[in-house]
C-alpha cells in the first residue's frame, strides 16, 4: 500500500493542506480497492478455467491426471494471487474491501468445492477452505509457485507489508466470511447441474442419481435458510432451483428412457455397466 504523499503547495491555506491529506488517504484507499478488484478478477478467471477443465473429468485414468493438474493450479492460485490479496488486506478491516474481492472469492470457492466433490465425493467445509487460505509464518517469502502475473510492476510483498507489518509472527490469512462460502456453494450447484447433463450423455447413470441427491440436499439447506441470509442468496436460490429442476428432469428422462431399453442392448449404449433397467415391461417396439 502506497504511503500518503501530500505535497503541500506554496500557496496552501490550512484547509487545502488538510484536504491534500484527505485526498491522499482517499486515493490510497481507492487504489487498494482497485488493485483488489483486479486481483479478484484474476482469481475469477483462473477459477473459471479450472472449472472448465474439471468438466473434462470422465473416465478413471483421465480423472487422475486432470485432478492432479487442478490440484497444482489451486496451489498456485492460493500461493499466488490469493496470497497477494491476503497480504494487501493485512492490517485492514477486510469488510471495507469485501465487495472488491467477493466475486473472486465466491468463484474460487465454487471451483474448489467442485474439485473437492470430484475428488472426495463430499462438500468441502468452510473451515477447510479457510485452512487453505491461511499462510503460516505471516509475511514470509511469496509462495514458490507464484504465477507470473500482470502485477509484476508492484513492490514485492516481503519488503513492504504495509499496516499489518507489526504482526510478523501471526499467520497471514485471507479472512473468509461464512456468507461468501455459502454463496460459493450456491454457485457450485450450477456446475453440478452441468456435470449431470454431461453424465447423461456419457451414460454415467450412477453419478446422475448421486448428483441429483446432492443437489436436493443443498436445496434443502437453502430452503431452511430462506430469506434470512444476505439478499444475494435469494437471487441465487432461483438459479439453484432451476439447476435442480434440470437435474431432476434429466434423471426422470433417464429413468423413463431406461425403462424401455432392451436389456441386451445396454452394453452398446453405455460404456459403464450398472444395476439399472430392471424392469422389462417396455412398450411394444
Amino acid at each position, binding site marked *: 500500500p502506497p504511503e500518503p504523499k501530500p505535497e503541500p503547495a506554496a500557496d496552501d491555506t490550512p484547509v487545502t493542506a488538510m484536504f491534500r491529506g484527505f485526498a491522499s488517504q482517499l486515493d490510497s484507499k481507492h487504489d487498494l480497492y482497485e488493485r483488489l478488484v483486479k486481483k479478484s478478477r484474476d482469481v475469477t478467471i483462473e477459477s473459471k478455467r479450472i472449472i472448465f477443465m474439471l468438466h473434462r473429468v470422465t473416465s478413471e485414468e483421465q480423472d487422475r491426471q486432470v485432478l492432479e493438474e487442478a490440484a497444482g493450479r489451486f496451489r498456485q492460485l492460493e500461493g499466488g494471487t490469493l496470497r497477494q490479496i491476503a497480504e494487501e488486506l493485512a492490517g485492514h478491516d477486510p469488510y471495507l474491501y469485501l465487495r472488491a474481492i467477493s466475486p473472486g472469492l465466491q468463484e474460487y470457492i465454487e471451483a474448489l468445492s467442485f474439485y473437492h466433490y470430484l475428488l472426495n465425493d463430499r462438500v468441502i467445509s468452510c473451515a477447510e477452505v479457510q485452512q487453505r487460505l491461511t499462510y503460516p509464518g505471516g509475511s514470509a517469502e511469496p509462495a514458490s509457485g507464484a504465477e507470473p502475473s500482470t502485477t509484476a510492476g508492484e513492490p514485492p510483498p516481503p519488503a513492504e507489508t504495509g499496516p499489518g507489518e507489526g504482526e510478523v509472527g501471526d499467520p497471514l490469512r485471507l479472512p473468509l466470511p461464512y456468507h461468501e462460502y455459502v454463496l460459493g456453494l450456491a454457485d457450485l450447484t450450477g456446475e453440478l447441474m452441468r456435470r449431470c447433463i454431461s453424465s447423461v450423455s456419457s451414460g454415467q447413470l450412477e453419478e446422475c442419481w448421486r448428483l441429483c441427491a446432492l443437489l436436493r440436499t443443498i436445496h*434443502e439447506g437453502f430452503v*431452511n435458510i430462506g430469506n434470512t441470509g444476505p439478499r444475494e442468496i435469494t437471487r441465487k436460490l432461483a438459479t439453484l432451483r432451476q439447476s435442480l429442476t434440470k437435474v431432476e428432469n434429466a434423471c426422470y428422462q433417464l429413468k423413463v428412457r431406461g425403462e*424401455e431399453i432392451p436389456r441386451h442392448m445396454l452394453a452398446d449404449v453405455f460404456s459403464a455397466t450398472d444395476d439399472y433397467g430392471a424392469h422389462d415391461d417396455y412398450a411394444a417396439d
Partner: protein
Amino acid sequence: MDSSNNLSDVFLQYSAYMEDEQSLREEIRSQVRELEQTAREMTTLLQSVHQQDGIQNIPAICEKAKGLYPTIKEHYAALSKKVPKDQYYRFHDHWRFVTQRMAFVAALLVYLETEQLATQQMVADAIGVALNKEDGFILDLEDYLAGLLMLSSELSRFVVNSVTAGDYLRPFRVAQFLSELSAGFRLLNLKNDNLRKRFDGLKYDLKKVEEVVYDLSIRGLKPKQET
C-alpha cells in the same frame, strides 16, 4: 409563545402515539420471524419426500412434520394476542407471506396423507386460526388460495421425482387432482394479480404432469389398474 408551547405539546402527543405503534410493529415483526423459522423447518422436512428413499417413507415424513404443528399454533396464538382485533389488515402484510406458506404446508400434508384437497377450514384448524372475522385472527381466503397454488407447483415436481423413484401410478392420480383443482380455480373470478399469475402457473403444472403421464403411456409404463 402560548401557541408555540401548545403546538409542541400536541406534537409530543403524536410522537408518543407513533412510538407506541412503532414498537407494536416491532413486536409483530419479531413474532412473525419466529413463526417463519418454524414454517421453514416444516418446509425443509417435507422436502425429503422428493428424495429417492423419501417417496417410500411418506407417512413417517408427514408425522415428523406434523410434530411442529403445536409450535406453529403457539406462534399464531402469540401473534393473535398482539394484533388489535380491528387492525388485522393494518398489519396483514407482515404475516401474509408466512401464512400462505403455512397454507401450502398444511395442504401438502393433507394431500400426502389422504390425496384430498384441504379446505380452508382444514387449513385454519391445522394452524390454529379462525375462519370468520368474528372469531379473531383469521386465515384470509386469498392467502389460503395462494397456498393451494404453491401446492400445485410442488406436486408437479413431486410427480417427476416419483417416476424417477419408480412409482408409475402417482402421476395419473396427481393429474386427476390438479385437473380438478384447475377446474375449481376456473370458477373464481380472480381480480388479484398475484393469484391470477399463480393460476397460470397451475395450468403450466398441470400440462407438465400431463406430459409425464404421456411419457409413461407412450412407453407402455401405464400401470394396469388405470384405464
